[in-house]
């Protein structure tokens, strides 16, 4: 559409190689999902009906209830924190601003693991209470299952909402607030009628991320025993000698995830907010007055539970693993699957996946931004599918495709890398698309008019300008791949355990000291790319 506007060059035809490249990437990414759906349709009617009759109802109810509860609570917590940090005179705001985003370094399943060691059966809390009361156990204080799963998911995913809402709150013009006050609106009415509508797009995007995560989560629900789709699929995979049930449940789960994605896009399209850019002033902070202490307490509680507590627990368990001889031998110095090997495998596979995903995403983004057309749009959307696919489902479809068409690939590290790329390429794609859209085509045209070939233009003009965005896209995929659990669990070859696997295996056997060191290493590794992304995001935000 844009290309037909006055002043812009007429619609250009995409170079054939670019079209082919983008098409290949998109089709390669879509193959696993399509094949999974084919397999699930081929499953005989009896399996379908018995699964639908016995399992589907409760699974749907639990999965949707969990997604809803987590999304609503995370949106509330994230928005509340963002408002307190960005719009009030909360003491030490700039410190809290960073701390509130920090729980992003804790993968949700690590959060669940920490929760188990603290409040699970015979966790520290129960042990302490039992010792005080002089009894063997106090089952009443155990909190496991749905509420525990929801709590852990909220505490580990609210930063998605917090970051997006915070950016919006920071960039709102003071004039709008003042206008509301001038019209006689009180602070609460101003919040409801001005701030909240302005926040809606950011809230929608953040909530979508949270909802998709809650639907696709595997680690938290498995460790804390919440009977959702992913848990049921994993049970099917591990106990049945037949993949039919898993294929059927996965297909249903994919439909749900696509439904959430679709609903969000509809919602986003309907309400648009425009702000005038010139004469922008930062909004004046709301004075908390007597509410300062309660506000401080609230922010402190969230940060304490979501960040400080997990860190302290992991550190304590790690120290214990160093002092315990059997743990020391099993975790740190064992000849197979020790944490150092796992660390090397994690870093190498995440780096490789990040590089492949960034390179592969580039032609798709370039085609869509520079030469928009129907095929370009199809390729772009196909490449985004992985966004809605739970890792377990990606893994299962790759198992199908791999064993059927590429047995030489199945059971190799390449398969793990493919899973990472399918799942996380959309993260790179979105960043690259935005960056390319901001890069004026006139620069490239100038280069072309000065006699540079398209390739030389790309290398000498576009790449240098896009470099920061490329690095950011790389870092994002690297971070996600680093902490990927379910696909790695199913697809890794023998001897290629990553840090998440080294957390998962001992944690599911309830050997906490063996799981903590890998968890701590993983969290520390996540800090570096995350700090980079955070600094970059802050420097790019308006003022």
């Amino acid at each position, binding site marked *: 559409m844009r290309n037909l506007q006055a002043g812009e060059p007429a619609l250009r035809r995409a170079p054939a190689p670019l079209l082919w490249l983008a098409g290949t990437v998109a089709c390669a990414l879509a193959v696993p999902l399509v094949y999974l759906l084919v397999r699930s349709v081929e499953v005989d009617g009896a399996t379908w009906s018995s699964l639908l009759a016995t399992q589907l109802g409760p699974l749907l109810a639990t999965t949707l209830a969990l997604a809803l509860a987590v999304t609503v609570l995370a949106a509330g917590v994230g928005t509340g924190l963002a408002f307190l940090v960005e719009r009030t005179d909360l003491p030490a705001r700039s410190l809290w601003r960073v701390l509130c985003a920090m729980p992003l370094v804790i993968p949700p399943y690590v959060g669940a693991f920490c929760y188990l060691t603290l409040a699970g*059966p*015979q966790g520290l809390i129960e042990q302490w209470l*039992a010792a005080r009361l002089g*009894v*063997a*156990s106090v*089952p009443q204080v155990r909190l496991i299952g749905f509420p525990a799963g929801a709590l852990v998911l909220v505490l580990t995913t609210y930063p998605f909402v917090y970051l997006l809402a915070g950016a919006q709150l920071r960039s709102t013009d003071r004039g709008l607030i003042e206008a509301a006050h001038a019209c006689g609106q009180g602070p609460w009415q101003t919040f409801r009628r001005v701030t909240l509508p302005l926040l809606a797009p950011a809230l929608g995007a953040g909530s979508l991320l949270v909802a998709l995560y809650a639907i696709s989560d595997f680690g938290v629900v498995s460790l804390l*025993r919440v009977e959702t789709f992913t848990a049921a699929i994993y*049970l099917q*995979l*591990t*106990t*049945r*000698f037949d*993949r039919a049930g898993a294929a059927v449940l996965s297909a249903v789960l994919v439909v749900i995830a696509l439904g959430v994605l679709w609903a969000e896009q509809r919602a986003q399209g309907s309400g648009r907010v425009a702000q005038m850019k010139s004469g922008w002033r930062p909004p004046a902070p709301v004075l908390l007055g007597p509410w300062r202490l309660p506000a401080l307490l609230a922010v402190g509680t969230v940060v304490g539970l979501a960040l400080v507590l997990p860190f302290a627990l992991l550190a304590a368990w790690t120290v214990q693993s160093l002092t315990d001889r059997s743990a020391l031998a*099993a975790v740190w110095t*064992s*000849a*197979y*699957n020790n944490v150092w090997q796992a660390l*090397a*495998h994690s*870093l*190498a*596979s*995440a*780096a*490789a996946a*990040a*590089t492949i995903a*960034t390179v592969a995403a580039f032609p798709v983004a370039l085609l869509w931004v520079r030469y928009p057309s129907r095929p370009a749009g199809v390729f772009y959307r196909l490449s985004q599918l992985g966004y809605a696919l739970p890792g377990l489902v990606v893994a299962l479809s790759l*198992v199908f495709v*791999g*064993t059927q068409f590429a*047995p*030489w690939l*199945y*059971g*190799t*590290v*390449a398969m793990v890398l493919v899973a990472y790329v399918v799942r996380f390429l959309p993260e790179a794609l979105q960043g690259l698309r935005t960056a390319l859209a901001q890069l004026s085509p006139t620069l490239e045209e100038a280069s072309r008019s000065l006699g540079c070939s398209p390739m030389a233009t790309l290398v000498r003009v576009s790449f240098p300008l896009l*470099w*920061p965005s490329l*690095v950011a896209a*790389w*870092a994002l995929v690297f971070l996600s791949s680093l902490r990927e659990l379910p696909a790695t*669990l*199913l697809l*890794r*070859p*023998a*001897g*290629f*355990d990553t840090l998440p696997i080294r957390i998962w*295996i*001992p944690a599911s*056997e*309830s050997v906490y000291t*063996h799981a903590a060191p890998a968890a701590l290493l993983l969290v520390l590794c996540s800090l570096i790319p995350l700090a*980079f992304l955070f600094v970059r995001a802050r420097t790019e935000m308006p003022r």
Partner: protein
Amino acid sequence: MFTRRQVLGVLAVGGLFTAVPSVGLAQGGEELVVYSGRKEPLIQPVLERFQKETGVRVVLKSGDASALANQLLEEQKNPQADVFVANDAGVLGRLGNLGVLQPYLSASIEKIPARYRGAGWVGVTGRARVIMYNKSLIKEADLPKSLLDLSDPKYKGKIAAAGTANESMLGQLSEMRQVMGDEKTREFVRSLVANQTIFLKGHTDVRKAVGRGEFPLGIVNHYYYHLQRAEGSPVGVIYPDQGAGQMGTMINVSGVGIVKGAKHTAAAQRFVDFLATAPAQEIFAQANYEFPLLPGVQAQAGVRSLGDFKVTQVPLSALAKEVDGSLKLANGAGMP
């Protein structure tokens, strides 16, 4: 800014280069790829000993036995594993029947009694299905004598067990079906469910729950009782169904099989032979209180010997074809 870019750029390229060689090129020397469905701490000492004695480099993949069995089935066209270690004769037998395992017999394997071997697999250690109890929660007089006693309403809310995700529990149900038929087994499962039996994720959870006094009774493999006792809990053990006319205590084995098409068959054979020798049998017996299957190797002090008690007369090779049926039966009767 520039240094950070450079660092990340180098990381990207370096990542690719480190990922590739760590995959493609194995370090020198012979290699053995082990898929193990046993708990990692239990298999590690044996692997370490094997590696030290033979110089064969062991590559380990741990997981659920059934999940790994599924993977072996999928990899049939291009086998990745050399040997499969599992915690249940049913899973091994199943793979053997499906042609995933290759038969192997040697002088050292023949020393393991034939009733602990099957098509393509050989038993390594034995385990008995027992009832463990917490001495401070239940009086001697109130203890069940038979697994079937657990249907008694007086044990309502007092039993912990593993669910159908656990191969040993499925194996137990398969044996019960062989002895007393589907209908009575279904009734037994129903009564367990009616008695509000708590089905936990695995036997470690069960033994800990009984050990710390959440439940008076737990259905486990015998070594879980010993592991819990070693932690100092006041627990006791019942070998059920020992009376005249009763079915006897059920036993199962952990075992090993060589994968058909294995890339390192010679190393795999050495490994299987090694597991049938006294040193390996002793490691399992000492570290995990299991019954050594090689005659002449002593069980850990305080553990009963295989010959000491009445054993259910069901051949282990019969379990393989029952797995699916038992799963369906248990799920249908309400066991998760």
